[in-house]
């Protein structure tokens, strides 16, 4: 079975996470669950990868974290929300991907 290339996807973990945060603030496990379901279970993000991405993006000011209680009431979790800088970065990454995809696509032969 062919699996997803971690080298390629690595550059777009940030984009994927930011995209999900566009809908509203979220926390670690919820994000990883959404990635799994939206990718049709083809991409399962590792916890360490996810945390590294959050940490990196927070340092760069793309996301901001805050403590909040679960909607269902109960556990306190670290939530992340996207910042304006994050939105801008997301748009840039989207354009970058379009270009990348367009270029790579030209070299993909289907038969």
């Amino acid at each position: 079975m062919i699996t997803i290339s971690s080298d390629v996807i690595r550059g777009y973990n940030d984009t994927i996470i930011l995209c999900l945060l566009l809908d509203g603030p979220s926390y670690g496990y919820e994000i990883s669950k959404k990635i799994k379901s939206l990718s049709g279970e083809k991409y399962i993000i590792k916890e360490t990868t996810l945390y590294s991405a959050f940490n990196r993006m927070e340092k760069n000011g793309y996301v901001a974290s805050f403590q909040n209680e679960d909607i269902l009431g109960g556990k306190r979790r670290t939530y992340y929300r996207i910042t304006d800088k994050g939105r801008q970065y997301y748009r840039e990454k989207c354009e970058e991907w379009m270009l990348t995809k367009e270029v790579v696509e030209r070299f993909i032969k289907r038969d």
Partner: protein
Amino acid sequence: METLKNYLENMFLSLPNTPEVRKAKSELGQMMEDKYTELKNEGKAENEAIGIVISEFGNLDEVAEELGIKTYVEEDTSSGELLCLEDAKAYLKDTIKCSQLIALGVMLCIISPTPFIFMGAYSDTANSDFAVVRTGAFAIFVMFFFIGLAVAFFICAGVTKGKWQQIKRKTVGIDFHVTDYTKTQYESLRSSHALCLSIGCMFCILSFIPVVLISAIIPAGFWVECSAAFLFILVAIGVYLIVFTANRNAGYQSLLSLNAKGTIGNIHVPESAKEVEYTSKGVATVMSVYWQTVTCIYLCVSFISFDWHITWIIWPVAAVLRSILNTCFQKI
């Protein structure tokens, strides 16, 4: 869930104990817990859920790199092995044995001059010179017997301890499971430690009471002259309790401090057990052989002067001097 907690703790064992790392640990723990709970709710078996969570956890190197601590992870896990629970249990058992032996040895040393006191008291009240010589010889014999026995105890304790020095050198640390076990044991001994210390101190402080009481009740004579011996015996009991509990505690603390300084695995070491650092190298050298030197001085002075009844004063003086040196030269 316990398995996952252990897994996470062990992964973080050799990382430095900083706010960033602690945050990473709690965040990752939270994600694992969420995932585990959901898998369980979906009807997965315990083992299956744990298996999935661990297989999807990823590699900590990634996080470490992000936090700028890559070197730490590599350095620490390659150079040795972790102490297993059986070894830790055996070590603690041996520590208690050694503590008893050392404390008994010290106790014997302290009471070793008492035969002379009895002898002195006896010879003052005895009639014949022959009896005096005989009791004198007997007192010397008993004293050396006590000291010999004490030395045997010390050697025995040293040999037992030496075996563990080797193991300590080979191991890089203890995993979370062992830390947890040791810590629980250590905590459970807290009250016993406090009790031993306070009773020990009480014995030492109140050791003069028999002397005062006897001389107050009975007029001069054999028993009054013997009363000093009771002082030694009470001090010996007190010192036994103090030495025993202090050694036992030190054993637990040395096990807990096996993990490298400043790492997550090192957080359970009580502040007081951390090694004292000195501002000057000379003081550090002197302090490393402090008690050995004091013992040496005590024995030399005592054997030369034979003033055993007073030379014990070296010990309290040395203890006070040590705390003064510590306060003056300690690195803060």
